[in-house]
């Protein structure tokens, strides 16, 4: 049996779960969570069901951009160990099918968000998808080691979209939440890149460690972590955060700095500190946004 025949057989065996995997469910869950926090932190309220549909629309939009990213990057995903088992390189879903799936869901999610909330939120979602797929995946990713610095904006939009869905505007507080995710993204991904740089090297994606070297990456991780520490405290200057958030953000920020410092001190041979920082960075983002949620709940019920 030729390879082509084997592949066409495997395409016929694609189940719904393979298409679901195109939506990057784990990224989607973080998007849902941060968008939800943006919604809750915003003043006023939205009908619970309209809020739920808006979250669904944002989730589908994020998933759609994930599918379009896999459509565009199928060639390099096949080579990298971290992504080799994604549906397209695994031979489960045709590349064109993934593209159509992502394009269709993109349009659907934007229309749905326009119906359930307002045009600003829908416009921001459309821009986020465009930014992630065209600006990040197509233009920046393979061209510059600043790829994820600028591309990180795409992942930072969800709380702003959630906020806009409730209020119809996007004030400074929403952009502070944007800034936290934006500044969090580089140390998060560079920690990963430090121990996966062989992968990126092989496919020619210019991640920071393989372009500027290991030492420069460690320095930049530490630098961003210091800025992130202060950005994490910025909500305290507004009325969306109080004592609970202050304690959480200080503790989590200090923890992030500690792990980043360990990476800074580390050696290229030892991947331990970078792996720990990568793990903690996810915990950090989750914790900081959870603190905002708790803060609002306490304000509401106490």
């Amino acid at each position: 049996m030729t390879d082509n025949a084997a592949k066409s057989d495997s395409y016929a065996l694609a189940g719904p779960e393979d298409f679901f995997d195109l939506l990057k469910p784990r990224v989607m869950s973080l998007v849902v969570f941060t968008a939800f926090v943006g919604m809750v932190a915003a003043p006023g309220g939205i009908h619970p069901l309209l809020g739920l549909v808006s979250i669904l629309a944002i989730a589908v939009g994020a998933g759609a951009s994930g599918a379009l990213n896999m459509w565009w990057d199928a060639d390099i995903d096949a080579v990298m160990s971290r992504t080799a088992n994604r549906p397209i390189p695994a031979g489960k879903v045709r590349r064109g099918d993934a593209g159509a799936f992502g394009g269709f869901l993109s349009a659907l999610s934007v229309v749905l968000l326009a119906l359930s909330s307002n045009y600003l939120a829908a416009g921001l979602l459309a821009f986020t998808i465009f930014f992630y797929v065209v600006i990040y995946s197509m233009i920046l990713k393979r061209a510059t080691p600043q790829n994820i610095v600028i591309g990180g904006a795409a992942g930072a939009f969800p709380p702003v979209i959630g906020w806009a869905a409730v209020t119809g505007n996007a004030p400074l507080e929403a952009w502070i939440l944007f800034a936290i995710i934006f500044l969090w993204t580089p140390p998060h991904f560079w920690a990963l890149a430090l121990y996966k740089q062989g992968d990126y090297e092989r496919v020619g994606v210019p991640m920071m460690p393989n372009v500027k070297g290991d030492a420069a990456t460690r320095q930049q991780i530490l630098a961003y972590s210091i800025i992130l520490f202060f950005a994490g405290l910025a909500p305290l200057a507004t009325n969306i955060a109080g004592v609970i958030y202050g304690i959480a953000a200080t503790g989590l920020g200090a923890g992030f700095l500690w792990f980043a410092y360990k990476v800074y001190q580390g050696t290229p041979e030892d991947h331990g500190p970078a792996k720990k920082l990568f793990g903690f960075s996810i915990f950090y983002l989750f914790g900081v946004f959870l603190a905002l949620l708790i803060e609002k709940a306490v304000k509401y019920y106490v």
Partner: protein
Amino acid sequence: MSEEPEISGAEAIKKKKQRNLAIALSLAAFILVVFLVTILRLGGSVADRSF
């Protein structure tokens, strides 16, 4: 070699049914969501508006 296509054929039909069912359920959910959103956005005052 000769038996394999038949097995994968049955499996392929099963998977196709699963995909079709998933699409049908998604469409039904989408219709329900648009219906509910429409009702909520129109609100109770839709009957009172003056043309």
